[in-house]
């Protein structure tokens, strides 16, 4: 019993060591997003609070904390309060399996990638619960749209993951990174990387696929009725999810914590920094897409997901597996 508690305390310590940087970087990433967005549109963006406006997110958070939380009279109160909590929790628990370096991971489980996939597929519930519990038309429409969108793009993300797993032969995320020591999967599986990136945009409701919160049609979609800290939690959860998708992309395709070339100045930089660089690189791509691409129409979104991405990634599964089989490269024999 005693040892159990000591294990518990070390685990809690480790979890805090992971969660606090993630939360801080989520706040910072919002600032980065707005700066990149402003840069593309030749504006200045948030630059007043602190050096380069770095503390803008903290100021925003302070503002949200002091705002009143309004729960609509006809809302289903328990579910209404639970929805942002679910979004936030699900966005944070997935970080447990992301490997930041060799043996530098909170939970090195055998089915790491399945865990990530499962948790990201649960993410839809925060949105559905929020939309339904608000008991109002716009949030409900937004929630329905979002659910359909996320379920559709999960399918293609699943098939893309199968592509990577065929080349690795293991579901463990550290194994996936170690399998890329010689060649990052972005090179042989480049089309899959592109599709993964676009599906990740759709999965996290980012522009150009932000139909669940299309302000011209649905006010703010599922979060219309939310205010104050509850709105901020939706928002933080969304950005934590985006960061997570970037982390997933870097682990699956960009070699996780590995340095690009294994020569002197590069391999002295510790692994976690490489992972952070890669996450930032993908995030800046996310931000650039937000700034440059117009929003898709809903039927175009569905057509892209089901009629283009799904058949193509299935075809690529066949291609990858036959290639591996023909050249006798199948792992894990």
């Amino acid at each position, binding site marked *: *019993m005693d040892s159990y508690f000591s294990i518990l305390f070390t685990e809690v310590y480790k979890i805090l060591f992971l969660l606090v940087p993630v939360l801080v970087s989520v706040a910072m990433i919002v600032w980065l997003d707005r700066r990149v967005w402003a840069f593309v549109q030749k504006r200045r963006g948030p630059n007043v609070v602190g050096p380069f406006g770095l503390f803008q997110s903290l100021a925003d958070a302070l503002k949200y904390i002091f705002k009143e939380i309004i729960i609509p009279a006809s809302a289903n109160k328990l579910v209404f309060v639970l929805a942002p909590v679910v979004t936030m929790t699900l966005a944070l628990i997935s970080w447990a399996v992301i490997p930041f370096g060799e043996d530098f991971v909170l939970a090195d489980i*055998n*089915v790491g990638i*399945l865990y990530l*996939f*499962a948790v990201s597929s*649960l993410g839809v519930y925060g949105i559905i619960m929020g939309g339904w519990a608000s008991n109002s038309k716009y949030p409900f429409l937004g929630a*329905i749209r979002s*659910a359909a969108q996320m379920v559709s793009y999960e399918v293609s993300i699943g098939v893309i993951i199968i592509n990577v797993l065929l080349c690795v032969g293991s579901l463990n995320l550290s194994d996936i990174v170690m399998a890329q020591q010689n060649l990052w999967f972005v090179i042989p599986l480049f089309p899959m990387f592109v599709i993964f990136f676009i599906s990740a945009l759709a999965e996290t409701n980012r522009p150009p696929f932000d139909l669940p919160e299309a302000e011209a049609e649905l006010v703010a979609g599922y979060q219309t009725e939310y205010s104050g800290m509850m709105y901020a939690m939706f928002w933080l959860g969304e950005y934590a999810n985006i960061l997570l998708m970037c982390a997933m992309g870097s682990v699956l395709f960009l070699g996780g914590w590995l340095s690009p070339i294994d020569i002197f100045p590069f391999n002295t930089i510790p692994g976690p920094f490489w992972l952070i660089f890669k996450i930032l690189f993908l995030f800046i791509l996310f931000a650039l897409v937000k700034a440059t691409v117009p929003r898709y129409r809903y039927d*175009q979104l569905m057509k892209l997901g089901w009629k283009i991405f799904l058949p193509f990634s299935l075809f690529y599964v066949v291609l990858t597996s036959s290639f591996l089989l023909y050249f006798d490269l199948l792992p894990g024999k």
Partner: protein
Amino acid sequence: MIAHSVFFYIFSLIAIVSAVMVTVSKNTVHSVFFLILDFISISCLFIMIGAEFLGMIMLIVYVGAVAVLFLFVVMMLNVAEQKGQWFSSRWDGGTHIPVGLLVSLIIFFELIIVIGGWKYKPDLLNSLSINVSNEVTNTRSIGNVLYTDYILLFQISGMILLVAMIGAIVLTYRERAGVKRQSYVKQISRERDEGVDLVDAERNKGVKIDA
């Protein structure tokens, strides 16, 4: 070991309570939420006995996809408040209760048969050719069995699911007239000659444009 059993009891308690709440709760959407909670706690139990692959697949398939569809249907059909509850004093004379009792009785006897068979013939479990060991991950061992010994059954079940899916699509598909569809190929391959028509308009006559 104590911690293990504590967690086991927590998860099974949540599973049982939420399973009861699925049938008891007044609001249909709440029932689905309890169903989701039930799925999640069951998958936690799967993970606790070391079947991590099954637990994760349970989460992905049931919680991530099936329950979302349940929620969709329940929310869209607008049946949020159920009228007569089965335990209320005024029973509206519906026929669903005898049928439900019959089905649950059958399931109960099936469970008794299964558990009884296992009780009286303990080597029943060992007759399966799955060697469970800690060295091989259970993803690999499931794959080894599923894609070798049971490949035919696996393929047939996949085929049945495909047929069911196509059947559902065919049943619900209806062709609607007057729907405008977008064709990218048509839009892109449009030339200037097709789009622009130069007409010599006569004075005081006007031009008739065919829509």
